[in-house]
Every structure is written in C-alpha cells, then in structure tokens.
C-alpha cells in the first residue's frame, strides 16, 4: 500500500496526462511517483531517455508543491488509495492491454480484484425489462461467487451492481472520473453499499478529474479487461456499450449477449451482435456452462427446474399463468383472452404476485417472474 504522500505524487502523475505507454516505462524504472517528481524537479538527464521533450515540459509545468498539497488534501478527505503495477494485488491484465493502466486509484477492498469476475455493460437509459434482466443475471452470477464488474453509471450498470450486491458477492465499479466526484449524483447510496460489502470503486483518473464525456469510452477497456467475459445486456445500435464489446473482442474475451425482445429498439444492438457471432444466453446458468465453471451435478439439478410449477393453484390462476407463458400481456389483453371479469382478474393477479409466479411491469402489463 502506498503512503498518503506517495498517492499525492501518483495523482499528480495521473493528472498530467502522460501517454499510457510512457507512464508505464517511467514507473518501471523509477518505481514511485515521488522519485519521478524529484527527477522532473532536478532536471535529471536520465528521464529524457523515456520522455519526449514535450511531455517533460508538461510534467515540469505541473510539478509544483501546491498541486501535490492539494492532491494530498483530496486523498485524505475522500479516503482514496492508490496502487501501481508494482503492487502484488494490481491486476496484471491491465498491463497487457493496449493503452496499459499503471496507476489505479481506489476506494474499498482491492482483495476482491483477485476473484473470478464477469463484466456487464448496457445502456444508461435502459428499458424496464433490460434493467430487470441485468439485476437478475448479476444476482444469479453473484450467488455463484462471481464478482460483477461494471461502470457505475445509471441504468444497466447500476442494476448490475445492485444485483451483484444482492447475491452477496463484492462488486467492482470502474469510474470515468476522479473518485472524489459524486457522479452519477443519484448513486451516492450505492457507492457506500459497494464499499461496505467488500467491493471496490476503481479509477485511473486522478482525484479532481471531472466526468468528461471522453473518459467513459476510454475506461471501458478497463471494464472489459477486469472480467473474464463480457455480458452485453442492452444496447441500441450505436452505443458506448458496443465499444466495450470491441475492447473485449480485442482482448480475446468471450462476449455474451442477452437476447431481449427482437421487436424493441432498445435491443437492436444486441441482435446485431448476435448476428455477428455473439454468444447467445438466456440465463446465468448458460454462462456458467459455457465458461466451464459448473460442477457436473449442479448442471443436472438446474436443468430439471425449468418448467412452471402450478401446484396448489386454482384452475383460474392456472389459466392466467398459461396465458402469460408466451410473453408479457397487458391487463386488457389478459381480460379479453381469459374472459375473466376485471375485478376477478385483479384479485387473481394479486394472488399470483404474492405466490411469486407473476410480476407487474410498468404500463399495466404482467409477465411470468423469471
């Protein structure tokens, strides 16, 4: 673990926008941020071997005690830690990708980085069914002890983190801004939950760095790298999520695509990717199977549990449930197809809901609970 002052030096280094490859070489030969700082300050000639003059000038300009002091302050105030690739807990994969990562700032427990992990990506403004699916998949994987990596944005990211927390595995959030930034503003509570449950918030950006639009697609390479596979939950045809998928493919990762409703514009990107050879899956079990993470006996048990149980249901309840098997239906459609009076239908739906067989969707629609 780095000392607070070392974190401040690393923050200076990260904030001065040294190209990734150069930063990697600098840190390999100088080892610490402090020694790089001193080398820059004292015009050490050795540094010119690694750094072009333009970059060195930028470093010189930003290397002042005021900035270090300010960083020190932020680091203390927000309990931000940092690690470099010399740290044994640093995920080595991040050194092997294009634009390698050499410094990571974090809040929470870096131990969880050694767990088996899967990345989940998807739209910020997601459909209700996409959010539900993300939550469910994340929760199921999490219950198998798999950590979920995602980008902490609204929508699918948030649903994935939440699902993971509910399945009691730690979750890994890769941010596109400094860890002192409260972004996105509504996720403050989630932030605390992530840390409290043994998860980690990561960023390659120095404290004080704003959530600029350019940061997000760039940090997606980290999201792709940290998971052993990437799950695309929901993407429209031109979407940042598909950029993460590109990173994953470049890094040789498996890409799983949630099928979604083929008629919905929300899932256009998914279906495009499926046509292009993405892995189809419908539930968490499929992923475990394809990744060979399944014990033999487990798969047999799971396979038998797929049909809908209608034990102890009245004939009418069963009738409604059967109508819902092909897919979601609105209340009016259910009423028309079942010929049950609205008042009776309402009460049947309540009972099915309480039994956990059916769930309501926005827009007065119902579907079988997965």
């Amino acid at each position, binding site marked *: 673990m780095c000392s607070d002052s070392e974190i401040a030096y690393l923050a200076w280094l990260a904030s001065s926008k040294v190209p990734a490859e150069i930063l990697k070489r600098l840190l390999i030969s100088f080892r610490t941020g402090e020694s790089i700082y001193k080398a820059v300050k004292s015009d050490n000639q050795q540094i010119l071997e690694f750094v072009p003059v333009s970059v060195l000038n930028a470093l010189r300009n930003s290397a002042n005690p005021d900035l270090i002091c300010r960083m020190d302050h932020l680091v203390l105030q927000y309990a931000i830690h940092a690690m470099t690739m010399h740290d044994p807990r640093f995920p080595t994969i991040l050194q092997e990708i294009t634009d390698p990562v050499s410094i990571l700032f974090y809040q929470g427990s870096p131990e969880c980085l050694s767990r088996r992990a899967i990345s989940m990506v998807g739209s*910020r*403004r997601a459909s*209700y069914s996409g959010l539900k699916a993300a939550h469910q998949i994340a929760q199921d994987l999490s219950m198998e002890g798999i950590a979920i990596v995602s980008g902490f944005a*609204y*929508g699918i990211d*948030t649903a994935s983190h939440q699902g993971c927390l509910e399945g009691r595995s730690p979750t890994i959030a890769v941010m596109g801004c400094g860890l002192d930034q409260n972004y*996105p*503003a*509504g996720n403050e509570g989630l932030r605390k939950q992530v840390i409290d449950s043994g998860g980690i918030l990561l960023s390659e950006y120095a404290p004080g760095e704003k959530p600029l639009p350019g940061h997000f697609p760039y940090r997606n390479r980290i999201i792709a790298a940290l998971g052993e596979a990437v799950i695309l939950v929901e993407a429209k045809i031109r979407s940042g999520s598909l950029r993460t998928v590109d990173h994953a493919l470049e890094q040789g990762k498996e890409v799983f695509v949630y099928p979604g409703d083929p008629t*919905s*514009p*929300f899932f256009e990107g998914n279906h495009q990717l499926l046509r292009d050879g993405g892995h189809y899956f419908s539930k968490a079990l499929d992923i475990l199977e394809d990744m060979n993470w399944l014990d033999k006996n487990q798969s047999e048990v799971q396979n038998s549990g797929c049909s809908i149980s209608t034990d102890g249901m009245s004939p009418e309840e069963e009738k409604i449930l059967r109508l819902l098997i092909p897919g979601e239906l*609105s*209340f*009016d459609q259910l*009423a028309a197809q079942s010929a049950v009076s*609205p*008042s*009776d*239908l*309402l*009460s*049947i*739906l*309540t*009972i099915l*809901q*309480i039994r*956990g067989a059916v769930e*309501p*969707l*926005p*827009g*007065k*629609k119902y579907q079988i609970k997965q």
Partner: protein
Amino acid sequence: MNEMMAKTLSFGVNGVIGFPVHVEVFAANGLPMMEIIGLPDTSVRESRDRVNAAIINCGRQGDPRRITINLAPADMKKEGPSFDLPIAVGVMMAIGTLHPVRERDPEKTAFFGELSLDGMIQPVNGVLPMVISAKENGVKDIVLPAENAREAACIEGLRIIPVSYLGEVTDYLEGKKEIVPQEQIPYETLQRESIFPVDMAQIKGQAAARRALEVAAAGGHNLIMIGVPGSGKTMLARSVPGILPPLTFEEALETTRIHSISGRLPSGSGLMVTRPFCAPHHSASVASLVGGGSDAKPGEVSLAHNGVLFLDELPEFSRNALEALRQPLEDGIVSVSRVKRQAQYQSSFMLIAAMNPCPCGYYGSSRRHCRCTPQEIRHYLDRVSGPLLDRIDIQIEVDSVPIEEINSQSPAESSAVVASRVSAARMIQQERYKDTNHFCNAQLSSNEIRRFCELSTEAQRLLHMAVDSMHMSMRAYNRILKVARTIADLAGEEHIATVHIAEAIQYRELDQKYWR
C-alpha cells in the same frame, strides 16, 4: 316640492349566505345630486349613473332633486350590480314618477337585476342564495332578470316575476301589466334532463381503469392515474360525474349556491343537477384553488363540492397549491380569511389526479423511448408530497389502448349501468354509517377501519403475505382495508373476503413501482 321617502327590498350575499338589504331612497330639495351610502363597493356606487340613464330612457324622469340612497344594514358590505333595479324603483317612487298599486308593494317584493343604460335588465350572480334568504325572511314576490328565473324556480312557495326591461317593472308595479310568474320546476324534472359530457360506453378498452373508477365512485375514494400521454386519463376522469349517485336536492342547492355566487352558472340555467367537474389548469394559484382574493371568493375545491376535482399533470402544480388541498380533503370545508372578509365554503369533493410517469411521459412505454434519467424521474415523482399521496386511496396505471381496440365495435357498459351498482353500494354504506357522521367508506378513520373492516382469518393471512412480499407500509395497509370494504359493498357482501382484499391490493401497485 315636498321631501319624499321610498323603500324597496333586495338581498345581498356574504359567502354563500344571503341577507336582506333595505334600499331607502330620500329625495330632498337642494342641489341636484345622487349619493349612495351603506358600504357600497365601486360597482354599487356606479349604479347611480346606470339608474339615471335607465330612468330617463323609460321616460320616468322627474324634476332634479337631491337624492340619498341608503342600503341598510349599513355595516354590511354591498357588492355587485344587482341593486340597480331596487334603487331605480326606489328613486322613481321618491321623485314621484312611479305609484305602485297597493297589492304590489315594493317594500315587500324583492328586486334583483342589473340595469343597462337603455333600461334593459341584465342577469346577476348569486340569485340562488338570495332567493333562499328571501324565502327564509318571509318574502313571497321576487322580481328578477328573466335569465335568472330558472335558477330561482327550484324553490317552492315563491312568486318569481321574470322581467327583461325597466318599463316592464314599472307597468307591473302600477298594475298596468300582468306578468306570468315563472313556473316552479320540480327537481326531478331537472334531473331527467341531465346530460353528462362523457358516457362510459364511449371509453374503449381500459377494463382495469373502468373498474377502479367504479370502486372509487362507490366508496368516495380519491384516485390517481399514472399513464403515458394519450392513454385517456382525462376522458376516464370526465366519466366519473356520470357514475356517481345523482345529487340529492340538498346537495344540488349547496353546489348551485357556490356556483351562483362565483358567477359560474351558465346564463338561463337552473339548479345544477349533475355533479360538478372542475379541472383547474396546473398553473392555478393557491387562491384560485382553495378560495381567496380580497373578497374571499370560493376556489375550485368549493366549486367541485359534491363533485369531482380533477388535477391533470399533478406534479406540475405548485407545491403550495397542492399542500393547500390537504385541509379541504380532510375536513370537507375551507375557511377563507382575508382582512376585509371571512367566509367558509363547503368543499367535499372526490379528487382525481392524473400524471405522467416521468417528465417526458414515456417511462415504461413499449411504444416510445423514454428520454429521462432516473434522477429526473425521481425529482418528478417527488413533487407529489407524501401527505397528499396519503389521502389518495386508489392508484392505477393507465396504458394507451391499441388501435385495434379503439376500432373494435364491442359495446362497453354505459354509465347508467355502472351508476346503479355504485348507488347500491352507497346505500349499504349509508345504512352502515347511520350512527356516525360519515356516508362513505373513504371517510373512515383508522379506529373505525378496525371496527367496520373485519377480515376473515384467510383474508387476513393474504393481506399479511402481501404486505410482507410487496414491502407495503402501514398506511397502505389501512387504504387496502378501506378499498376492500368498498369492493365487498359493491358485491353486496357483508364480510370482506379474500378476493376483495386481493383486488384492493392491485390498487396500490404504484407504491411498489414508483414510490418505493
């Protein structure tokens, strides 16, 4: 010339209560002038110019005199142009150009009416409360503008003389002309003529919403609808007055009084026989909603008395306006206090609110893409405060009806059929609550809920399971019981059964989806 004194009778309005006003006219020798005293407001003071012109135009002017007009009691404020006619009659008597026959004594006849300069008589506001007050004060004959005659015609035992110009009044008073009194219109006749703007038969699809409205009407429950734009929320709300039980005569009087004083009665209309439907725009101010202004006028909540107050785009209303609704929702009455005036108005109405699920309107819609962030949606929903939401028993979601459904010819149930079921359920409630001061399930307090909404063990178990599995609050629990009571009443059953509870739970679904 001798000094002359004349008296006529009229009525004024304070709040919704009428009071007698004695118009005293004194014509003295001196510089020609006309002065009105007795706390007149501007419109009353301007009366002298209208009266002068009208008298000249019907050829009854006399010699110029010094005229003083007193409106007694002198300590009550007098408002509005309805004193034009009694003043004109008094002035003509005082200057000696009008000599009423004995049996048509202007001192025992009440006059209302605004004069135009050419002597025509214009309709005025607040006729109903004034006529009621006239009857209470033992006045039999009432001369009023022809357009207001129907409004007064519902009160028994009066001789209503409709007039349309000043000359007609003078001829009538002097016995030169007979005017056929307005026939009394029995309340039942009016009711038979009632028309509702939207009949439930016109509403296609929306089975769940129709049922929810029926339950809401049967128990007097407030209701909120959430749905995408164009899903028919407004049309559904407009159908509600048609399924509520018909207004009783007393209710009709109460409601018409309020509409009468605020000038909202269409000219020539009589007693209101349909329940009012008020839909203020969301830019409405606090004063326009609950009443106010320097003269403490009634607001929309009082205009909706015995009817429906429909607030479309609920979150767009100002926070203050929504908070101000809490007292009338709770007590069924508003006290409007202003420096110069205090008034109490009844305001027991059924609240129907409608809103979109998010600022752009399409959250959860499968047809269009919602552009809002979770943050924006939260802010939008948070504009509806918890305490207001607490007073709304039924929450439903309304989705737009597919085009095939709109074109389908399958006839829907008409309002009349639904209304008969609602009336039956209301009868059961009135019988049950005859010892209390309630008349419908929505008014039950939490103690009374325990007394009147007993559950079978099985129903109890279901409710507990629901509260548990759907993470419901205690307040949701009480609302479910009340609504279940109404559903049981609609079914004509004495005990609340499992199915009733199960249906009632569906009317809390928004708690789960939106206000978690």
